[in-house]
């Protein structure tokens, strides 16, 4: 790096360690931008909606408020990643990822391989899932599973403030392209999170969020909370539910999943994405292939059906997995 870059002022990191999911994103970005001057932020509207005054803190050089050109500012970040920067691209609403998907899939995910390892692409793509708020089908996608079928990308879907902060920081420090799918329904969720600026959660590591012995419930993203509510209710009925959050869907921590299935022999997978070709489908296939002998009952998937998200909230809400559907799926196999 050249000496022409000014050292940014030291930030006041909150000492109160109970922070929201949104705070976790902001802190992770700020801490990593302070730690490493190669980290830059690129995206639409970040000058104004900059998740905590990033432009004022780090300046226009490192914070680029872009025109509405998703494919090209994404490609620009990839080019910058190959030439010494570590960009974070804020794609805002997850439905816009489709516009950038050529650069994400054909360039970011493939260039390390296609150049025989000459190049690396340390870039983070952020996409916020704005579903469940009556935004209709073009603003409500949960498109992560599409990218699972495109090797070369890493994909994280954090569900808690701590997971968000630790995984986001790991993503920024990772030498590969990482897609971060954020859930806006979790923005206000709060919990104590480590203030350690090196607090990292490794990419590719699932977490057992609740231990149990009768059924393994695997949840993707925000489905965790509905599954935990269901698990507490089921406990009253004498059914012991283990809840696992993979947190990273590529690379998937198969070991933790298989280990739990070996114990319980029963599996419910809960995923807010549409049913066909979902993460739930992939996890079901992995279990069927690698833990078939452990299964005592058929694998259950609780997903959003293959129908578009309507604007009418009364029509939209029942489409997503909820406590009742999770409970019914568990009871179906116990």
């Amino acid at each position, binding site marked *: *790096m*050249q*000496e*022409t*870059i000014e050292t940014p002022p030291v930030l006041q990191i909150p000492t109160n360690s109970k922070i929201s999911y949104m705070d976790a994103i902001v802190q992770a970005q700020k801490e990593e931008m302070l730690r490493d001057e190669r980290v*830059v932020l690129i995206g639409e509207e970040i000058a104004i909606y900059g998740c905590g005054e990033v432009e004022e803190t780090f300046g226009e*050089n*490192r914070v*680029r408020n*872009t*025109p509405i*050109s998703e*494919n*090209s*500012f*994404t*490609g*620009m*970040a*990839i*080019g*910058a*990643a*190959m*030439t*010494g*920067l570590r960009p974070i691209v804020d794609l805002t609403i997850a439905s816009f990822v489709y516009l950038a998907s*050529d*650069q994400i899939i*054909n*360039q970011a995910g493939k*260039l*390390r*391989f*296609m*150049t*025989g*390892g*000459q*190049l*690396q692409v340390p870039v983070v793509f952020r996409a916020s899932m704005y579903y469940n708020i009556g935004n209709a089908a073009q603003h409500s996608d949960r498109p992560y599973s599409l990218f699972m079928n495109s*090797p*070369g990308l*890493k994909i994280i879907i954090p569900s808690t403030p701590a997971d968000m902060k630790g995984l986001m920081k790991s993503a920024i420090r*990772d*030498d*590969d392209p990482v897609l971060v799918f954020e859930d806006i329904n979790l923005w206000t969720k709060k919990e104590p999170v480590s203030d350690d600026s090196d607090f990292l959660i490794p990419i*590719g590591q699932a977490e057992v969020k609740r231990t149990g012995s009768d059924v393994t419930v695997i949840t993707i993203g925000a489905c965790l909370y509905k599954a935990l509510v269901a698990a507490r209710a089921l406990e009253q009925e004498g059914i012991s539910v283990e809840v696992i959050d993979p947190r990273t869907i590529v*690379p998937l921590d*198969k070991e933790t999943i298989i280990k739990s299935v070996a114990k319980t022999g029963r599996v419910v997978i809960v995923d807010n994405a549409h049913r066909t070709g979902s993460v739930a489908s992939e996890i079901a296939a992995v279990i069927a292939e690698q833990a078939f002998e452990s299964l005592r009952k058929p694998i259950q998937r609780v997903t959003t059906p293959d129908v578009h998200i309507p604007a009418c909230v009364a029509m939209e809400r029942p489409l997503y997995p909820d406590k009742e559907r999770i409970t019914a799926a568990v009871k179906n196999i116990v």
Partner: protein
Amino acid sequence: MLLSKTQQFEMYRRMLRIRIFEETLKANEIAGHLSMGQEAAIVGACMALRDDDYITGTHRSHGHPIGKGAELKPLMAEIFGKITGICKGRGGSMHLADNSVGIIGESAIVGGGIPLATGAGFSAQVRGTDQVSLCFFGDGAANQGTFGESINMAAIWNLPVIYFCENNGYAITTSVERSHGQPDVARRADGYGISGVIVDGQDALAVYDATCVAVARARRGEGPTLIEAKTYRFDEHCKGLTIPVPYRTEAEIDEYITRRDPLKLFKASVLAVGEISEMELMAVEKEVDVAVAEALAFAHDSPFPDPTDVYDNMYSNPIHYPA
């Protein structure tokens, strides 16, 4: 810009290396999208760059690394799919991206390299270096969204990028007349508030001059330039492509090959100045013949990659492969 005698030899050497390299591929019936006919555009542009400047290229990828000064052996071996290839047999003919000479991608997605080059320029600006980035693309790519989107961003932020269009008149078989609202790609520059220049792409010295102006502007922090080199591809779009209906006339092809060959034109122009003798150019020709023959032998003699190593370089760290 006046070129030194050494630079003129280098210009001729690089153009000839592209020509002989590809004639050898053709003679050996090896697949590829050949750049023959477009050597002056490529080399004229690359000679205006420093070793640490970045470029991105296209599926017609053989010329760009050679033009930027790459070694021939790893390029030839890559086309043969050998482990000694520049991309270890993972890229092949359309992707001769040699990072040792600053290439950050030869994209077979038309227009795909344009944002990448923009990003390299952005990176140089953020890091505060005076590196520039040059993006090769064709007339076909000018109709992709990435063209307008990227140039607009480079214009907003004065990024040190040279958008260099190798306009060979045809996107595979579709002519510029059939696919562009007006024939000059460079005229679109005005719409983005940047400089656009049209140059004779068969004249290496003219291309060099135009690119030097753009590079100097970029290094001064005064932003991007769109250069359009009017050029011509001597061969078909690629080997093995069946063209049932002729889309360009024999007379047109013949005109370019006999009267507008960039190597012949360059040779004639330097000999006319009289600083360089025919004997000296013949020595360059001999040297290039030997280098290409050695590259071919190297490619032939190199082993193929071990198929079990196919998972190498998928990620920075190993990820439980195969699943």
